[in-house]
């Protein structure tokens, strides 16, 4: 049971990371900078609970706000670039963040022990949950409360005008601008929202794994972040969740016994999935089929893809 709860934890945290990239994909922005916001959330909330003994909720909130603030700042220059250039720019941002924490040494004596980020040696003993008597079920409940909340908000967003505006910008920003949509506001808002979600995810990640260092927030994790919504499909918020379950639950955990071959199978499965479902696991057809089976009337435009 302990093991499966641990997997739920991992899936929950990675879903938040994937959803942070999903928000940006709605506006047509492909960002590899989500891992930078994830790192900010991880370090800030970790510092607050370990060095200043803050409560986890306050620490997560501040971590998310700081990550969101940086995302807001990054949102403006990001407006000037698109496509591959945006990918490169956001990689550069996440590397700056990673290298900042790589050099950050802030050691404080707490209860006779030196704690805090220690540059290359990493940031150890972010043990809020275990040290405060949280059972693993409580941790899973906390993580999934955030996952459900964020998924619900994004699902709701897709059903109101704001969501339509995001998708309009994602489909054709010039056309959206011609229709009176404020591109700056929409893209910066999406970047900020993505930063906040990644910040929450990062805070939960740091407290779940109890340790973070510069190796944690590499380009590999950034690639995972955008892979989730792309593989899952960004027609629906549940696609990201499905992709995380597929990658973290099945490929990484389920195929552990395969050792080094796991990475080969991982690549093959991704290629296979992208060929069989090029618009993602949860594409328009999938949603339409589900609605038909549930007896509902599918939207005309939902079977696009």
């Amino acid at each position: 049971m302990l093991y499966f709860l641990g997997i739920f934890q991992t899936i929950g945290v990675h879903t938040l990371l994937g959803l942070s990239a999903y928000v940006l994909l709605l506006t047509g922005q492909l960002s590899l900078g989500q891992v930078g916001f994830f790192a900010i959330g991880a370090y800030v909330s970790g510092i607050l609970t370990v060095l200043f003994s803050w409560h986890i909720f306050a620490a997560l909130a501040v971590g998310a706000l700081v990550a969101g603030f940086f995302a807001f700042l990054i949102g403006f220059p990001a407006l000037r670039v698109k496509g591959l250039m945006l990918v490169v720019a956001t990689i550069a941002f996440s590397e700056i963040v990673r290298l900042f924490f790589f050099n950050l040494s802030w050691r404080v004596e707490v209860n006779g022990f030196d704690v805090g980020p220690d540059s290359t040696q990493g940031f150890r003993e972010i043990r809020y949950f275990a040290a405060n008597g949280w059972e693993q079920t409580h941790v899973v409940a906390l993580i999934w409360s955030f996952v459900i909340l964020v998924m619900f908000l994004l699902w709701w967003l897709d059903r109101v005008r704001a969501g339509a505006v995001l998708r309009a910008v994602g489909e054709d920003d010039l056309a959206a601008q011609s229709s009176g949509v404020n591109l700056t506001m929409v893209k910066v808002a999406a970047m900020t929202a993505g930063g906040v979600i990644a910040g929450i995810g990062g805070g939960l990640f740091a407290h779940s794994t109890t340790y973070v260092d510069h190796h944690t927030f590499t380009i590999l994790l950034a690639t995972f972040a955008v892979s989730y919504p792309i593989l899952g499909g960004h027609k629906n918020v549940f696609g990201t969740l499905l992709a995380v379950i597929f990658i973290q639950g099945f490929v990484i955990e389920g195929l552990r016994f395969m050792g080094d071959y796991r990475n080969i199978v991982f690549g093959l499965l991704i290629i296979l999935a992208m060929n069989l479902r090029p618009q993602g696991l949860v594409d328009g057809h999938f949603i339409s089929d589900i609605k038909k089976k549930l007896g509902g009337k599918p939207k005309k435009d939902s079977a696009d893809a």
Partner: protein
Amino acid sequence: MDYNLKSIATCVATVAIMAAGAASAESVINIAGWGAQSGPLRSFGVNSNAVIQAAVKRVNEEGGIRLADGTMATLAYEYHDSACNAEQAIAVARRVASSDVLVGIGPTCSGAAAAMFGVFQKQVDDASDTGLQLPILTDTAVRNGLAKISQWTFRNTPNEPAMYDNLWEWIATNQPDLKTIYGGTETDQGHSNGTYSKVIVQAAIRHGFTWAPGDLEGLTGDIASGFEAVLDSSANWLQADTNFAVQARAFRKSGADVLIVSSHPFTTCGMLKEMSRQRIEPGLIVGLTSSSSAEVMKGCPDEAEGMIIPTSFAPITDAAAEVAALANENGGDADLHSAAAWENVMIIKQVIEAVGITGDASMVAQERRAIRDGLEALTETEGLLGTITRNQAEGEALKPYVFVQAQAGGWVVVHDPR
């Protein structure tokens, strides 16, 4: 009638003996190992797994482990791939902790260990701490101070401060013409970086060597003194680097008698090859403990010629030579990291027999605790190179060591301070 009674009694006794035999044959003590079997650090996990398999086989060939009731139990072992990834190491730890495994060995890398040890209960009997409660004995993760993270975690890894202190003392005595030092490290690797900037350089200063480019602020010879200045003044690289031209030029420019290459085998060979290409020929090259491995001899035997490293493993005793051969049979290599895994299995056997384990699956929690207490009570164990003493306040080991030098494509022991 008597005949019948005797027959029945004989049958009952025979069945009882067979049942007892069957029961004892079925007694199993489960242990688990995990580490990198995939990813760039795969070789470390492969080596450890090969050695643990050999050790488990040896224990079982010799009759198994004696339980509290005097019967023998077989040692069963499983190895999981955690890829030197923190999340995966924690996932495996939870999986193992959910099973009837009594002791764990792992998880290869220091970063993964730092994370994984954090999800264990920090102090035993602290009811407010909900961390995992499973004794762990680590073989490879050598970064400073890891075992202090939890009282359930123990290490059987070399004591680098003592090894390098003795190494520099030995160099100063035997090669008094060598006066100055300079070097570099892979700065994004915690072990290489920490050992270089806080241990190796300071030990050299302590024994009268001087920093070739000039005195450094705060560098007194005490452990960790002036480590930031050391790093700033050194010619460093990163784990993923493949070009070392600039660093090698800095090495040449320093004009130092002794050059320190503090990195793992992968970049050690890259740096040594570049130094060779630039025809840099110092009086001596000192390497990081982790590079006293077969990987360096496979990757750059000629360029490594003359490099000297302190190590807690060399096939210089019968037992060590046998483990090296067994590791090869299982597709791995015995080195200072993986050989410790053999000692770990033997320590586990020793502790289980000392504390008296029943092997009853319903008592897993109590038996894990007994084993943990047994590990903590250990003051000495027999290792492959001799007696290992333990500093149990920190869960660490003080292992015997030797100095090896790369000579003609192999590691040759040049000094044995045991």
